[in-house]
């Protein structure tokens, strides 16, 4: 009986303690959970979950870092810079294992300390060989020799504001890559000192750049498509056709079977770029068949004559197809059944289109196979439509016969009418 009030009293005390503890817990949760508070606007100096208290003195870096992919993944300032991000005094914050600003030559190794760690990168499905590949690149080789004015990780990826390549704001998002590389490779004085050509401006004038930058074609090649990403280096003679052939597979196949490939390698001429240029590559122009050969071969040589012949054949086929096409349009308006002809003209266009890659074989039999086929399909369609248009002339001829018949009928009726009236 007497135990009851005691129990009741202790129970009430327990309740009180529990309430206080719960309140504290809620406060702690509210503090720890960013989601529990209203969305934080980056306040320089305030405590940030990623930057700790570093932003008190380094507000600009903190704002950049908070927006980066690293901040999102739980990387902190101290991960790269060391020190203590919970301190508010410089001595404590910059104490201990504080490293400060990393020297340029040490940056690749610093990044690699995480990015070459298979265990850490596995969750992100990121490769871990970038550092090794970088060391084989021209950038990495020069850095090794002590030239620190070459690209290190942060030059292309940024230091604090690193974003993934899929983010349109990222320096490594495909349409931004030319500008990222161009930051150095568009710098004429910097490049001239190292004997490297100013490829950035040349690239901007190319069909590749127009596709990528003007038309937003994300599949168009950027700098890294040909030069490699971390292992950036110019492709050597003998490798150019492999690089271009990543996309231009048909051209590469025909070129590999041609007489050119051996001769050019022996003469040390880069394969594709000898005719097409390297960075300022323009759209395929069929009329180049007529002029390209004479760039290396003599103007009166057999080779130059062959080029002119290919061009003539190509032009004749194209003209035939255009003529057939305009006839189809005419027949459509009458109307005459043209679906089949349209399909065949498309087929002819496909042949003609294939003649251009095939021209890399510089074999008149192969190229002629396509151009002549295109031409003959075009002229077949043409003559068949002419045949059907001829039916229209038949209609008019039948009309003449019809009128003959009408006049005879009218004459008979007229005579009948006359006789009827007379009898009446």
């Amino acid at each position, binding site marked *: 009986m007497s135990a009851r009030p005691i129990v009741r009293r202790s129970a009430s005390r327990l309740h009180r303690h529990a309430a206080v503890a719960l309140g504290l817990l809620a406060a702690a949760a509210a503090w720890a959970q960013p989601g529990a508070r209203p969305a934080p606007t980056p306040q320089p100096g305030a405590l940030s979950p990623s930057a700790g208290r570093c932003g008190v003195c380094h507000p600009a870096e903190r704002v950049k870092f908070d927006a980066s992919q690293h901040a999102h993944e739980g990387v902190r300032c101290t991960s790269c810079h060391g020190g203590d991000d919970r301190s508010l005094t410089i001595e404590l914050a910059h104490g201990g294992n504080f490293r400060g600003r990393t020297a340029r030559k040490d940056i690749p190794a610093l990044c690699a300390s995480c990015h070459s760690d298979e265990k850490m990168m596995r969750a992100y499905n990121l490769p871990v060989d970038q550092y090794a590949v970088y060391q084989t690149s021209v950038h990495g080789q020069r850095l090794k020799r002590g030239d620190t004015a070459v690209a290190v990780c942060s030059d292309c990826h940024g230091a604090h504001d690193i974003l993934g390549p899929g983010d349109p704001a990222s320096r490594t998002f495909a349409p931004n890559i030319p500008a990222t590389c161009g930051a150095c490779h568009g710098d004429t004085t910097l490049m001239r000192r190292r004997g490297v050509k100013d490829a950035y401006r040349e690239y901007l004038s190319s069909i590749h750049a127009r596709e990528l930058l003007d038309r937003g074609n994300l599949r168009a090649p950027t700098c890294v498509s040909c030069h490699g990403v971390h292992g950036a280096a110019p492709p050597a003679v003998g490798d150019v056709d492999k690089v271009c052939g990543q996309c231009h597979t048909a051209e590469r196949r025909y070129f590999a079977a041609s007489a050119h490939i051996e001769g050019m390698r022996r003469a040390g001429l880069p394969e594709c770029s000898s005719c097409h240029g390297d960075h300022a590559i323009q759209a395929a122009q069929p009329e180049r068949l007529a002029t390209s050969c004479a760039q290396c071969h003599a103007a009166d040589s057999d080779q130059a004559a062959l080029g002119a012949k290919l061009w003539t054949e190509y032009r004749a086929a194209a003209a035939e197809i255009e003529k057939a096409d305009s006839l189809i349009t005419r027949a459509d308006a009458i109307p005459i059944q043209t679906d089949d002809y349209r399909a065949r003209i498309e087929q002819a266009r496909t042949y003609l289109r294939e003649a251009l890659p095939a021209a890399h074989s510089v074999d008149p039999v192969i190229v002629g196979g396509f151009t002549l086929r295109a031409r003959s399909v075009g002229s077949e369609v043409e003559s068949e439509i002419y045949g059907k248009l001829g039916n229209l002339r038949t209609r008019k001829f039948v009309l003449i016969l019809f009128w003959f018949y009408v006049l005879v*009928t009218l004459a008979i009726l*007229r005579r009948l009418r006359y006789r009827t*009236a007379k009898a009446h």
Partner: protein
Amino acid sequence: MSEAPRNATPDPGDTARAARGGWVEWLERRINLSELFSLITHFGLVYTPVDTRKPLREVLREIGSLPVTAYARWPQVLGVLAALLFALQTATGVLLAYYYRPTPEAAFESTRTIVRDLPSGWFLHEMHAWGAYLLVAVVALRLMRLFWDGLYRAPRELLWFAAVAMAWLVLQMDFTGRLLTWNAQSYWSTVRGMEVVWALPVAGPILAFFLGGRVVNEDVLIRFYVLHVIVLPAFYAACIYVTFGTLRRVGLSYPSAAGARVVTSFRAHLVDLLILTVLLFAVLVTLTTLLPFGFLAPADPYTTPAGVRPPWYMLATYALLQRAPVPMWLSGGVMLAAAFGVLLLPLWVRGDGGPRHLRRTRLWGVVALAVWIVLGILGATLDRP
């Protein structure tokens, strides 16, 4: 069979043939052919009652030699043409309907199949189109001619009503028919035309309701189809029946020239009609072969081609609706009043019908026509997206 009628005495040759028993006589012994034949008197084609007791050959001979007032000539020929062309439109229309499918998805495709893939399909299609053009011209000319000669006065009011109704029906058949091909021009022309219909006060919304609403879609297409192939032709046929029947009672009119009346035998008149039919058919075939209408792209409700206007007979109303500085209901009302004014002409044109009165009415008619033409030209020059 002998062509010349011999109504005086029975031909001995005929009697001999009857005795031998031709197929007509064979039939005659079993059914009353004359009674069956007398049906056509209902349509006003034959003016006298038929004596059904006589054998058919004799009846035909009698009718053939009857004196009739010929009307297969100017100006009564317009009425004959309105009937002949309608018959031709019915024939070609029925054949086209065998292949036509009235849904937005299939309308253009099926029309193209008719024109392009079916043997002589192009011929039917073009004949129907040119026939429609000629029919519109014929009924319009006929209306003008009746007005010019004052043929709306008693006892010919019913003929006038029927003629106006025929003109209205032909225009509606034209309006509903041009949508059916569902090509770009016809579709957008109908869209503009529906704007005109919609703007008519009171009548507009009612008409638009029956036509399937304001937006030209599948509902409108199927309603247009039903109107075009069943409802309007039925009314038109009824108008022809009324016209022939009334003509039989009140007789043909010859107010303009005293010597214009031509009396001939019924047989000769039939030959005249035959000649007229052959000529009409020949003219249509020639137009069809030499001046076929082009075949345009299918209709796209999201793309308006340039230079789209309503059908020509709506251009005056269209111009009034688009440009007149008055409320829409007022300009619509004016046009509606004009249309009904023409129909109800016998009610409000007073006077003795003499030359002075006729001249005054003609003047009003010419002024009204001129205003309508000027408005129409104005409408044709309007170009809006």
